[in-house]
């Protein structure tokens, strides 16, 4: 393999996104989505006993492309490349890693920008409302399709964390362990508020046109603004200060003007503009709404009863400076699990980097995931051997 020469030593190398289509998916809303396509990627090899499969689920703007590169020229690896690869926490020498895109998204899976078979045009707002459970139900089809009866682990951060919790609750006998990072049993009112501002930014862009923009220029300004708000929430105040301070983009300009921007403004503009190229505004609306509606307390009466029948072992991780999914919300999950007598490992990692810490190269996080998976794999292998 010459990939090692092209990419860094611990990269999974060249990868490609694959697609799995199945007939129909009954949704929580009562509607039926048909047909359904899920984009996914896999890394590593499934072992003979099929005991080493790990499902990675992504956050709001993620995709199936979690690791490696799509082309040799591709400078940007998958979104969790730091954590997935040979010798990395999700060690592709040991585990078979699946990363599935979510329905409602715009990176190859069925979503509002897909063609509605009933009309032959993109769904737009005709796309049904989806929930986190619908996302998980769709992934269940993929996992079954790949011939896996029980996953060694399911891991994800943020919305990904919500999906891991749902997986453990809805398919208890298919999940050996869960890694829920910077997650919550329900989003806070503050989180919903910020999501709504993002949605309003999109809906108030005249180009949005009630979601019918697929043959015209889309609501780029609105989507970009939504992303800028998002990025503010992903960083902590301290991290933002350390990263940008009050520095200007162009220090030579001494005259105050609206063109004379601070570094932090420039950063947000850049993030906003970059996002428009790869994300669909309607997907942003549908997915944020699914996050807002996610509520394990309400769905099961209490959080305690939500976890009453889970069988997985849990690794729950929060970050001290995360104000979007604060530590208290992870602790609440852990408490409910503990009271139910479930095996749960919890750490509140000291960091200034805010919600997005799970996407960054952060040694304590890497070590914790790596050790947890190693122990879970040992246990599963031992149990399998005993049978």
């Amino acid at each position, binding site marked *: 393999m010459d990939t090692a020469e092209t990419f860094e030593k611990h990269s999974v190398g060249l990868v490609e996104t694959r697609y799995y289509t199945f007939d129909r998916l009954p949704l929580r809303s009562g509607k039926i989505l048909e047909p359904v396509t899920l984009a996914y990627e896999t890394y590593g090899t499934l072992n003979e006993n099929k005991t080493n499969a790990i499902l990675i689920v992504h956050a709001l703007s993620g995709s199936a492309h979690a690791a490696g590169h799509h082309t040799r020229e591709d400078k940007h690896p998958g979104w969790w490349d730091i954590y997935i690869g040979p010798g990395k926490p999700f060690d592709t020498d040991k585990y078979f890693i699946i990363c599935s895109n979510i329905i409602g998204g715009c990176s190859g899976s069925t979503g509002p920008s897909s063609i509605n078979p009933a009309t032959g045009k993109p769904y737009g707002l005709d796309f049904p409302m989806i929930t986190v459970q619908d996302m998980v139900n769709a992934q269940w089809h993929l996992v079954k399709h790949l011939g896996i009866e029980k996953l060694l682990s399911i891991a994800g951060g943020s919305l990904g964390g919500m999906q891991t919790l749902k997986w453990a609750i809805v398919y208890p006998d298919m999940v050996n362990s869960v890694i829920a990072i910077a997650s919550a049993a329900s989003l806070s009112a503050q989180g919903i508020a910020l999501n709504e501002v993002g949605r309003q930014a999109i809906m108030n862009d005249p180009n949005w046109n009630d979601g019918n923009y697929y043959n015209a220029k889309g609501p780029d300004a609105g989507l970009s603004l939504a992303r800028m708000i998002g990025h503010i929430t992903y960083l902590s105040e301290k991290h933002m200060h350390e990263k940008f301070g009050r520095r200007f983009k162009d220090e030579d300009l001494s005259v105050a003007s609206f063109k004379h921007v601070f570094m932090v403004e420039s950063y947000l503009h850049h993030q906003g503009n970059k996002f428009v190229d790869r994300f669909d505004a309607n997907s942003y609306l549908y997915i944020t709404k699914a996050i807002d509606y996610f509520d394990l307390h309400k769905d099961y009466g209490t959080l305690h009863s939500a976890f009453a029948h889970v069988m997985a072992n849990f690794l729950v991780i929060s970050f001290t400076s995360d104000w979007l999914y604060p530590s208290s919300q992870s*602790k609440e999950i*852990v408490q409910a699990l*503990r*009271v139910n007598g479930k095996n749960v*490992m919890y*750490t509140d990692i000291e960091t200034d980097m805010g919600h997005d810490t799970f996407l960054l190269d952060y040694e304590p996080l890497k070590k914790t995931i790596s050790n947890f998976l190693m*122990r879970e794999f040992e246990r599963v292998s031992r149990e399998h051997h005993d049978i």
Partner: protein
Amino acid sequence: MNIGYDLIIDEITTGSKVLDLGCGNGELLHLLQEKKRAIPYGVEISEEGVFQCVEKGLYCYQGDIDEGLADYKNNSFDYVILNQTLQITKRPAYVLCEMMRISKNAIVSFPNFGHLKTRLQLMVKGTMPKNVLLPYEWYETPNIHLLTIRDFQDFCDKNKFPVKREYHFSPSINGESRRVRFCYNMLAQYGFFVLNGEHFSGLNEC
């Protein structure tokens, strides 16, 4: 740092469900898992301790030891252990009551402030005691509720805590815990109590 481990291991029956409050790097729980096939759970405040627990494959919660105890049902555990930690807890009475409520047995061991060395140091030298038992300077000690064996006995009497066993000890040179029967409040370095929590149903009892 393995003070009283041998006594605790002897005390615990095979296959028990054990919660260690302040489990540190998880060494005691790991030993209990190996030697007594215990089902181990831990609570630890330090990130480093928790990381080491993950490495050992132990399920551990990062937080204050009194955090979340209230959520457990009565007698959820066979044993709850508070080893060399009582003197650090902010609310010792609360923690002890909760330990007895959530577990059939509560094991409590602590450095005995009434030990001869400690007494002499204060009396003869006139300085705050600093020795094997209390290895800190006054300005850096985490100990906020120091006590003697007699203090703990009085406390149990007053609150009607059923003491199952007392086994006050000093470690010998090879690390083994040696029981001190005679004049233990002056001669035993550590107090060791097993409280019966089986019929203890809540805080209103203390």
